[in-house]
């Protein structure tokens, strides 16, 4: 049985903000199925009572010194933006037309 269907891949692509094509869906569905069947082997390990590791360096609350350090200027921060206006990032519309 397939671990993942073409429909699921399409749904995940939407969640990931990827406007994938039909050809990509055809290609990815099979490839992702092979990958998922392989990585599912982690389930063979009996690990119910094992704590998870998110990070190899155990750290909590790393704080910097409370001093002012130079940061990017506004122009520098905007320098790589595809579009800007009035010293801000300009974005396409985020509200629907009727609003």
């Amino acid at each position, binding site marked *: 049985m397939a671990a*993942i269907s073409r429909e*699921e*891949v399409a749904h*995940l*692509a*939407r*969640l*990931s*903000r*990827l*406007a*994938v*094509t039909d050809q*990509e869906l055809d*290609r*990815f569905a099979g*490839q*992702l199925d*092979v*990958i*998922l069947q*392989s*990585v*599912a*082997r*982690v*389930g*063979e*390990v009996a*690990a119910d009572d*094992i*704590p*998870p*590791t*998110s*990070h*190899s*360096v155990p*750290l909590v609350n*790393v704080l*910097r*010194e409370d001093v002012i350090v130079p940061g*990017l200027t506004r122009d*520098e*921060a905007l*320098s*790589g*933006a*595809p*579009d800007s206006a009035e010293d801000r*990032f300009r*974005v*396409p*519309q*985020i509200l*629907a037309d009727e609003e």
Partner: protein
Amino acid sequence: MSDLIKLSAVALGEKLAAKEVSAEEVTRVHLDRIGEVDGRVHAFLHVDTEGALSAAREIDSRRAAGEKLGPLAGVPIAIKDVIATKGVPTTCASKILEGWRPPYDATIMTRIREAGLVMLGKTNMDEFAMGSSTEYSAYGPTYNPWDLSRIPGGSGGGSAAALAAYEAPLAIGTDTGGSIRQPGAVTGTVGAKPTYGGTSRYGLVAFSSSLDTPGPCARTVLDAALLHEVIAGHDPRDSTSIAQPAPDVVAAARLGASGDLTGVRVGVVKEFGTDGVEPGVTAAFRDAVETLTKLGAEVVEVSCPHFQYALPAYYLIAPSECSSNLARFDSVRFGLRVGDDGNRSLEEVMSLTREAGFGDEVKRRIIIGTYALSSGYYDAYYGQAQKVRTLISRDFTSAFEQVDVLVSATTPFTAFELGARTSDPYQMYLADLYTIPTNLYGGPAISVPIGLSEGLPVGLQVMAPTMADDRMYRIAAAVESVVGTFTPPAL
């Protein structure tokens, strides 16, 4: 072709210090070499000719003024295109960042400049460092100088190929699952992954934040150690940076070069076995183990029962972190924007931009990661992979109670033909079988050339405990002192 390009970074540094040659001349001969061979190798995505010459002239004038400079001042270096370089294009080999010029330098880049190294340019890689062959670059593959029909490894194939082709004596790579060590192995060069947290990630474009580690690439162990020393050490701008002094890797490399390993305990991982391993790789590894014994090391077999689950765990953890990290490519703050016709919504423009800007492997990993993190699958995939990660770390900890270092072949097979594994992504993943456990644990590991299999280089991997980076340099330098370095056929 100038003889200068064949020199080690140490030798170049000595010649520069003795004023036998200027930094400008050293830089020029390397730029000339790039001009001569990079059309065939394609190690570089961007060559910063003017920036390099101007940095070299500055070093020359500081030296002329009597300033005391470091051992690598005036030595050229190539930088993987995933490291932010102020004002110099940084694309991560992706179309989504085409033409982006960062407004700041990565911390390791600042340290490289302060040490007087001269950046020649930015090297090719798999897009966002996801891959094992550099074939997933959006700008075309890099070709292995040993055989131009073969891959140079990945993701840092550009940095490794630049070294093997004598286009640069030093390079920077980044290692998330083997991207420094595997390219080193298949190009006959040295690649070291430092302890996670031992080198700063500030300004390294994030792929998998709990695994990404920048490190040195070179043609000799001592050169790698000198570059390691330049970039290592605590950085307050990286919250996972370890606030301890870096181990003295240069002294360790010099000690190792004496060729005496008396009293050193070396472990061979039993579970790695020989299944699916190219016979020539197995033979070269056996010879290397014999060499270690002759140098006085005590070699024993060590069991690491969970290493067989490292690859599956990694290919859940890394894509999960990638799916989150790459959300920043949203068509707003930097890079590409596609389909903004005044009518489409932000969400539509974002989806069209990411579709146009990312390549197949990046898309596959984003989708896998999104799947592994989604509710209903989280516990079975991402959560379980994190538990397996704990067990792999425990395997390392208990192994290092018995031995000082672990050794293995760096990769199960030598450089394969271009196109051989691109249609089956999982076959590509197998290139990282031996390198991935270290990343999950967080310790350091180095690949050093040990021989050839059917004319292609084989690497030995030396893995050490966290913050014992010096140990792996000692062992690698000792091996190098016996087997020597390997030179590809003339290009």
